């Protein structure tokens, strides 16, 4: 195990191969590695397999842009800023993306098993539902559970009876170990120690479960500074492989203590990308029409970004108007 290597966004993205399985940091519209998802589209990656506890803007972009073949997850949307994932909805209905549904508890369990090197996680959550309907196993229906893809388990789940306390039957959910963990974290130390400044979501399990981990951060800080409070850190340097420095990489999703979610941007995305034509226009403007992330930021402009900038007291912006009053 070594120390992570600092590379560019382009270099990092170029290592991802068509067909790879990806997992992401963050939660719905917070701390998503958006800049890298834009770059994945620019580099024309195809047939990706996304494993998501829940999706958000970043994966709606990947799905809308045609990079995704298989989506496994429990939820897709952008909270109150877009109650359904319109791109996934369209592509699933069209048969362009294979979907396999989980509950949050199932997805969390699968990732946490992958994180600790177990082949499965037991759970009794969400039993008795169509999530477990064998006829609705989207991956099996696509003929993908034949053992040929190491990232796809041979069964969606099995059941087992508790042999110890007669609790009854419960589920074993297969672990998941994606090829790549794309993790946005605000701060990474000079030796690779990772710090986030709020709830940790599933970020730690994504880091441990994935074969290789790219952390895209706002800034590199002295490791010594992060080590003053070891209970606050998310990961050690040897758990991550590559570091990309890219300020505002999570925009339009939020990063606690750096910037708030860009609600206008998300709302407008959700409204305008209900059709493929709408998505293509969005992508032309914000992804293909800009050379790189710096040009994207210039396009957003200082005024917009400064409005989103988080207060160092509360961790979120006090400059955005959020409600009707």
């Amino acid at each position: 195990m070594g120390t992570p290597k600092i590379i560019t966004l382009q270099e990092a993205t170029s290592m991802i191969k068509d067909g790879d399985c990806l997992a992401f940091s963050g939660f719905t519209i917070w701390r998503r590695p958006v800049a890298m998802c834009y770059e994945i589209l620019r580099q024309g990656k195809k047939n990706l397999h996304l494993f998501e506890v829940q999706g958000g803007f970043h994966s709606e972009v990947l799905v809308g842009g045609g990079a995704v073949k298989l989506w496994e997850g429990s939820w897709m949307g952008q909270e109150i800023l877009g109650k359904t994932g319109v791109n996934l909805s369209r592509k699933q209905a069209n048969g362009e993306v294979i979907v396999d549904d989980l509950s949050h508890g199932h997805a969390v369990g699968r990732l946490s098993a992958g994180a600790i090197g177990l082949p499965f996680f037991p759970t009794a959550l969400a039993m008795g539902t169509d999530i477990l309907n064998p006829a609705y196993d989207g991956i099996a229906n696509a003929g993908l559970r034949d053992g040929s893809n190491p990232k796809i388990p041979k069964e969606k789940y099995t059941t087992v009876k508790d042999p110890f306390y007669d609790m009854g039957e419960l589920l074993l959910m297969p672990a998941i170990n994606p090829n790549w963990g794309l993790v946005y974290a605000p701060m990474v130390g000079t030796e690779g120690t990772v710090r986030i400044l709020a709830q940790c979501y599933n970020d730690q399990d994504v880091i441990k479960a994935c074969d290789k981990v790219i952390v895209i951060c706002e800034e590199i800080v002295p490791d010594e500074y992060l080590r003053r409070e070891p209970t606050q850190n998310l990961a050690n340097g040897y758990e991550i492989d590559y570091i990309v420095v890219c300020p505002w990489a999570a925009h339009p999703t939020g990063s606690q203590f750096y910037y708030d979610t860009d609600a206008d941007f998300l709302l407008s995305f959700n409204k305008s990308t209900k059709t493929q034509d709408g998505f293509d226009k969005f992508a032309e403007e914000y992804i293909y029409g800009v050379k790189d992330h710096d040009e994207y930021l210039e396009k957003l402009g200082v005024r917009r970004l400064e409005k989103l900038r988080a207060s160092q007291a509360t961790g979120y912006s006090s400059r955005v108007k959020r409600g009707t009053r």
Partner: protein
Amino acid sequence: MTASNEYAKVGEFKPLDLLAVAGAREVNDGDVVFAGTGLPMLAIGLAQNENAPTARCVYEGGSIDGRPIDTPTSVGDARCIYQASRAGGLYEAFYGQLHSGYVDLGFLGGAEIDKYGNLNTTYVGTPLNPIMRFTGSGGNADILSFAKRTVLIMVQEKRRFTEELEYVTSPGWRVKKWPSGKYVPKQAVYGKFFKGGPSACITDMAIFRFDENGEMYLDTVHPGFSVEDVKNNVGFDLNVTRCSGETKPPTYRQLEILYNVVDPEGIFLP
């Protein structure tokens, strides 16, 4: 607080206000509540300011018992962890809290419901012929499966209150036993993991509860609506024999708390 505990009159409150107030009344003091974004946040915020001051809220993003000074718009929001007792992640929320058995009360919405309180939050159509996709389960299936009580918040429409769901995202009182898919009582699938189920369903027209057999019945009708109105907006044969009268309107005090304390920015309340 200057407003009184008198009930507001019809016209002095909006449908959403009554939903929030009815939700708040379902919260017992001391309850550990697992809730999502939106109306549940209003209901719990109101309850914490009135009838259930020590109710504590677990959000899926991983914050526990936060005391936001600005209304969160997401359960993963930076605002959720202000003065929280803990901030962890989803493993903590779903396993450390929910699977562990700490959660007394869940608050959920859905696109469709059947008379046993099963919810669909995933499809128009089915995964085999998907016409449209909603968000999917998220924590919906998990919370309904493991919370001791769950309050379901729905829009009252005939097509949403349906005899049989095309897709069951979340388990009510009668659930599908696999591999056959036959409906059996929830207890038959959950064994000793069984903790409870849906306790109430609150809509913009009425409040429903569930009987000994897990079947939905009409409890109270909101001011301005009749039992007939409700029956006409339910797609299955609704038991109205237990109807106990009219839903109590919000009090002036409750409205003041909602608009001035819980959602002063008007994020959820227009």
